[in-house]
């Protein structure tokens, strides 16, 4: 079987002036058999790999020109006018061949080159290719131009030309013809131009966009779409023009980052105009630091073949910001729930690690009096290397001016390193190589501008934080600073309360606490009554208290007003009839929410009157 090739013709052949011929040919023909054939004058053309063109040898060129001359007659019938150009590609003559061409032809073209004629459909690259053809003295065929006539009407023209040589084979210019193009070709060109315009408009968009037809086939995709690598599977990002986009989504079903089936179903609905808008995701591309993509499909009304437009939006920044905000809230909650300092810090470290997928973190509390940082809390993944490292660093003490942690103390600003080994202040801050950790970040816990401690996190994912991340680190640092300050204050209060109790034990006989109904909940020390029998009673309900209603009534009024009271006196008669005098003092107690919780205070026995003594005389006074 013998057949011709099919497909689009490539660039036109070129004819080489004889002068530069030898050099060009010798450069191109390197193989032995080819050279032998060349020397035997059995070769017609050389194919130039650099330009992708065929170079005709002079004899073949002459033969082709001779054939062209033989065909001149039928060609002449088909053209609207002919022209001749000089060696500089300037028109030096033109001849009108048909009446219709009279409107198009213009004497003003004489002296001008083709690219000087205000052709509006060719671009710089097109003209560059054409001028290259001229430089190579190559024939050109059907160069498609769009030009307005004298009345402003647009005409589509096809220009062809071939080089002219004199008898000494010297280049003398070009001669050629111009034809008005057929209506079908004009429409085709118009559509091509329209498509080119649409393509450029889409390419101008930074986000990936594609147009789908009624069958879900990608009609057009912009440059961002073609360059969108690394997106999550299931979004059909690998679909190209002519591919079935819906099928591409479905192909990712099962082992993809997202299930492409819902995306495909939604897009089918949009194409069928069953819904105007469909949004899916966002989903994250697999791998560390994978971007977040959200799919958006909309119905196109009156869009011809195009039925839907699909856009993919990179929402990584929004997702990251959302995650960081969630982290800030989580840290606030953990701190609010923390009863102890170290457990609260550990909970914060855990929250940060889980949120950012970091492997481990520690908190070093600053001891300004000793000038050191002491590790007081840590958390890490349950990997063996991580846990061993955390075990070894338990109780770590560092100089507060050493390493990256020291820089944080000094500056009050976060610092980071892509290489954990960079923290040369001590291997104690850097994870061992077997942990596979590559980066670390340190940031301070601050209160009133003072660095109270330093967080240190290590993980392969740790890198230079962006502005939003820095904001979060500062926010967490301030929250923790407040927490540490609150814990310090609470510790002081506890110490103060303990101290108070010790003092009252010295200056009073008993210490008491009451609930909001003034009933005893606790009694420490000796009193006129057993602690057990008094619990659940008020002062005025105590057994053997001498009822002095007006006095107790006044006292209860003060209690209701939440006043403190001092040295309120009352009496009680014991089982053998002796009368005891007591002084009580107290102050209201409020809970963390500021609600009244009861009273607490002290009691002191100040005198006793024996049963047989006269009323009004005390035989013993303290």
């Amino acid at each position, binding site marked *: 079987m*013998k057949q*011709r090739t099919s497909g689009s013709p490539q660039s036109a052949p070129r004819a080489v002036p004889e002068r530069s011929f030898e050099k060009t040919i010798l450069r191109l023909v390197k193989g032995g*058999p080819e050279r032998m054939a060349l020397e035997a004058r059995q070769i017609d*053309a050389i*194919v130039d790999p650099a330009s992708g063109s065929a170079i005709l040898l002079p004899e*073949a060129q002459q033969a082709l020109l001779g054939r062209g001359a033989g065909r001149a007659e039928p060609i002449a019938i088909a053209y609207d006018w002919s022209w001749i150009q000089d060696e500089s590609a300037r028109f030096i003559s033109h001849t009108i061949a048909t009446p219709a061409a009279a409107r198009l032809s213009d004497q003003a073209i004489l002296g001008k080159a083709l690219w000087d004629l205000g052709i509006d459909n060719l671009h710089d690259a097109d003209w560059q290719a054409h001028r290259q053809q001229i430089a190579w003295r190559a024939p050109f065929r059907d160069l498609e131009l769009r030009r307005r006539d004298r009345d402003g009407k647009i005409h589509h023209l096809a220009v062809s030309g071939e080089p002219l040589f004199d008898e000494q084979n010297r280049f003398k210019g070009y001669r050629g013809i111009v034809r008005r193009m057929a209506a079908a070709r004009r429409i085709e060109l118009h559509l091509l131009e329209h498509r080119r315009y649409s393509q450029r408009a889409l390419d101008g968009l930074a986000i990936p966009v594609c147009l789908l037809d009624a069958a879900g086939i990608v009609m057009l995709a912009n440059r961002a779409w073609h360059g969108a690598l690394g997106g999550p599977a299931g979004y059909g990002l690998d679909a190209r023009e002519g591919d079935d986009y819906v099928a591409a989504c479905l192909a990712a079903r099962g082992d993809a980052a997202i299930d492409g089936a819902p995306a495909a179903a939604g897009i089918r609905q949009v194409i069928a105009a069953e819904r105007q808008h469909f949004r899916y995701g966002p989903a994250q591309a697999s791998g560390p630091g994978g971007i977040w993509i959200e799919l958006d499909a909309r119905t196109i009304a009156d869009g011809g073949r195009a039925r839907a437009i699909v856009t993919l939006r990179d929402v990584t920044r929004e997702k990251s910001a959302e995650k960081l905000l969630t982290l800030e809230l989580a840290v606030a909650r953990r701190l609010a729930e923390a009863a102890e300092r170290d457990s609260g810090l550990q909970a914060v470290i855990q929250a940060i690690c889980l949120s950012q997928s970091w492997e481990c973190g520690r908190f070093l509390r600053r001891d300004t009096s000793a000038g050191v940082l002491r590790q007081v809390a840590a958390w890490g993944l349950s990997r063996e290397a991580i846990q061993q490292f955390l075990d070894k660093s338990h109780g770590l003490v560092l100089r507060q001016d050493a390493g990256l942690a020291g820089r944080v103390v000094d500056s009050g600003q976060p610092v980071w390193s892509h290489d954990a080994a960079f923290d040369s202040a001590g291997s104690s801050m850097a994870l061992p190589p077997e942990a596979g950790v590559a980066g670390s970040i340190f940031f301070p816990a601050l209160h009133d501008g003072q660095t109270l401690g330093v967080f240190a996190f290590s993980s392969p994912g740790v890198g230079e934080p962006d502005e939003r991340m820095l904001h979060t680190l500062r926010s967490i640092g301030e929250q923790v600073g407040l927490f540490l300050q609150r814990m310090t204050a609470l510790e002081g209060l506890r110490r103060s309360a303990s101290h108070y109790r010790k003092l009252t034990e010295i200056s009073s006989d008993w210490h008491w606490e009451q609930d909001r109904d003034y009933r005893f909940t606790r009694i420490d020390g000796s009193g006129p009554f057993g602690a057990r029998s008094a619990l659940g009673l008020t002062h005025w309900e105590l057994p053997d208290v001498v009822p002095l209603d007006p006095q107790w009534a006044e006292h209860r009024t003060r209690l209701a007003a939440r006043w403190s009271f001092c040295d309120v006196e009352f009496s009680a008669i014991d089982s053998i009839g002796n009368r005891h005098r007591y002084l009580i003092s107290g102050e209201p107690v409020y809970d963390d929410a500021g609600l009244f919780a009861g009273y607490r205070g002290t009691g002191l026995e100040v005198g006793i009157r024996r049963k047989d003594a006269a009323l009004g005389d005390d035989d013993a006074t303290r």
Partner: protein
Amino acid sequence: MAAKRPRRAMPSVTSTPVMVMVLYVADGGPNSIQAQANLDLICKEHLNGNFLLEVVDVLQFPKRALADGIVVTPSLAKSSPAPAVRIAGNLSDQGSVLRALGITAKNP
């Protein structure tokens, strides 16, 4: 632009493998015309219709030639049966061409 000239295939009547060839020409070039004529003769006399031949005009399809590693035209490339062979020139030395193609010349 060169006209297309589809050629009729002759059915294979022997059990020998079909010879698959591509002739790269510059259509209208004197050597190319001669190469086609020489190859036609070889096919008629020695291959008895047991061949597939594709003619590629490098003036129209230079990139096809480049992709096939062809630098000069005319060139004949035989891809099957092995070994693959390339012959540059107008194929006027029939003896050399037959040897290169692995065809044993018929006795007169």
